């Protein structure tokens, strides 16, 4: 039984920290809705709501193009990662062959090296191959980065599938391919969704890779667009805030709709332990 006092204390702590997390973000929203003339770095509460900042930021900052690039790149990385991670996770979880553990650990290297480590040689390689300034220069390296996590994630999930299910499928004469796509993948939908969300978010928010790889205005991604927009409009706080919201919104919206799934996915591993 939880005492009333303890309950109240818990709520107070949670509320305070939720507020701390939210205040800067609410400030951005308020500032974005403030008419440009009233704007100041102080998050003034707007006299009247003004959606004009969004239109201005959208137009001046070329955000239509940036968001388009971001969506294309993020979706491609998610799809590629999902397919390759399912295949490799299947291999590492259910096949027995020499070097399996070693290969698995080699994929895990990708979990620990920061992009700063491989971006320089990668840039020169891709440039020599004529791939910089193309979406491939963003999609393929980020797929590699996401795979380190994806393979690990899918392998663990496949391992958690009860052996009996797999044995039963085998007895029914299912091939490996069929076992994977008809039985394992459908049961792993929640795991796949969680992985897709995380990979989407990482890719959407990535900054260094697009900064280095992309110079064509139309292929730049949203966070990059915001960084440049910021240094061109250092004193136009309303515009900056509006632009910030444009960039953050897609991921935040996804998070709002899928957060239950996201967090429960994240906790399920721990619960099963």
């Amino acid at each position, binding site marked *: 039984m939880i005492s009333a006092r303890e309950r109240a204390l818990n709520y107070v702590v949670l509320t305070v920290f939720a507020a701390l997390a939210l205040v800067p973000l609410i400030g951005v929203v308020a500032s974005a809705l403030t008419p440009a003339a009233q704007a100041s770095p102080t998050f003034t509460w707007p006299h009247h709501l003004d959606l004009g900042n969004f239109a201005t930021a959208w137009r001046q900052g070329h955000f239509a193009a940036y968001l388009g690039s971001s969506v294309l790149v993020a979706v491609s990385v998610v799809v590629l990662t999902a397919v390759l991670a399912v295949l490799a996770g299947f291999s590492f979880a259910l096949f027995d062959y020499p070097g399996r553990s070693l290969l698995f650990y080699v994929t895990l290297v990708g979990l620990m090296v920061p992009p700063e480590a491989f971006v320089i040689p990668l840039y020169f390689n891709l440039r020599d191959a004529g*791939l910089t300034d193309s979406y491939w220069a963003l999609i393929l390296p980020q797929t590699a980065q996401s795979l*380190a996590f994806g393979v*690990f994630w899918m392998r663990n999930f496949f391992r958690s599938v009860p052996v009996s299910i797999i044995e039963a499928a085998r007895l029914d004469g299912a091939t490996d391919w069929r076992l994977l796509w008809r039985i394992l993948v459908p049961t792993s939908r929640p795991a796949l969704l969680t992985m897709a969300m995380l990979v989407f978010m990482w890719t959407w928010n990535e900054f260094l890779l697009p900064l280095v790889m992309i110079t064509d205005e139309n292929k730049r991604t949203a966070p990059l667009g915001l960084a440049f927009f910021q240094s061109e409009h250092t004193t136009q706080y309303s515009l900056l805030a509006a632009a910030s919201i444009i960039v953050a919104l897609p991921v935040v919206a996804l998070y709002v709709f899928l957060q239950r799934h996201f967090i429960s996915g994240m906790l399920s591993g721990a619960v099963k332990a």
Partner: protein
Amino acid sequence: MTERTRGRSARRTVAAAALATGLLTAVAACSPGPGGNASAGATRTAGPVSTDVAKAGKVTLTEWDQNTDPGTDASTEALNKAFMAKYPNVTIKRVSRSFSDLKTTLKLALSSSNPPDVVQANQGYPDMGAFVKAGLLQPVDSYAKVYGWDTAFPSQLLDLNRFSTDGKTWKSGSLFGVSQTGEIVGIYYDKAKLKSLGLAAPTTLAGFETALAKAKSSGLQPISYGDADKSPGIHIFGVVQAATAGKAEVRKLVFDEGGAKWTDPGSLKAATTLRGWADKGYLGSGFNGESKDQAVADFAAGKSLFLVDGTWQAAVLEPKMKTNVGFTALSPAAGQPPLTQGGEGLAWAMTSKSEHPDVAAAYIDFLVNSNGMKVLADHGNLPALPQADYRPAAGTVDADILAQWKAVSEKDGLLPYLDYTTPTFYDTLTAAVQELTAGQLTPQAFGAQLQSDYARFQQGS
């Protein structure tokens, strides 16, 4: 949360990482190392040049500029539109970045497989020199002849855009671009405030310091200064150094003509003076955290007496302050001609990989010919080549600027920007000025820091 970097089963993974890296390095060691880029130094063989843009067929021309200030932004937009109207077969794609973002991304853009056709390249070793060395820009000598740039521009301005084709010697060799704007760094003053203090516009460093002291003692903020963007520090230090070190020494330093050090008395005095201004509060408080846009806005709003900045700010100030703003440049001593850094804006240059060099050259000419200069002036900018009929109304800041520009350029008073000095000097100098003004570096240590960068460059070249 943006990290994909996770710590998992770390021990095994570290071992695997070591193994993998070891193997790969072993393999890599057999290869000759990062060799020279095949395209480096390769310049297009100069074929016959054509000025007939209409015949070029459908062309998309990409240009990168740093014209984000309202004046140059408007004139660039207007000229681009006019060019496309004149040549319907050409579409211009404009990419405009703040100066510091252009600085951090232009090299990447130029070395990409599909670089822009026309770019604004900063003069000196850090940018233009590095680009030329890498074979990323093409010489424009043949176009200069065809379009008459070589005679229209004074050699003093042309030389700043010259480099030997290996990028090692500046100010001689091939021409790699021409500039559209003229610019000098000087002192904007609030006329009404200056008058209320009973002062005339300063013409020497001593006079300027007197005015600063008087403003401070009467409770007026002497200078609006914001150095969060890092580049304004170069300008304010340069203005002082021009007066304390003199033109011969500054030129020796920046052009690497030998016999001068950043620790010499003239530069040391400049550092001491600037540090003194900061200590006395002439620069305000918190300037290292304030953006330059904010400083300009504060000056325009009447919060201070002076603003030390370039002529490119006139288009920002004029609409807000009307005729209440004046512009002056300082002389080392009374009776001498003014001396200040500046000359010309970033050079419009052509990239080696541009598929339409003739169109690119025609576009550059469109920017810098007499009509281009006129459009530029119409939007409140100082053209590199002011036309004979360009006569801003008396009493305006544009008139002041033109007068000072003439005084400086006709009497050989133009000094190079200090960040041109070495490939790393922009970073070194801007950081050192922030440290000097914040009291983190003594003037002596400031000079030593610059000199160590300089010495490294001299040894290497």
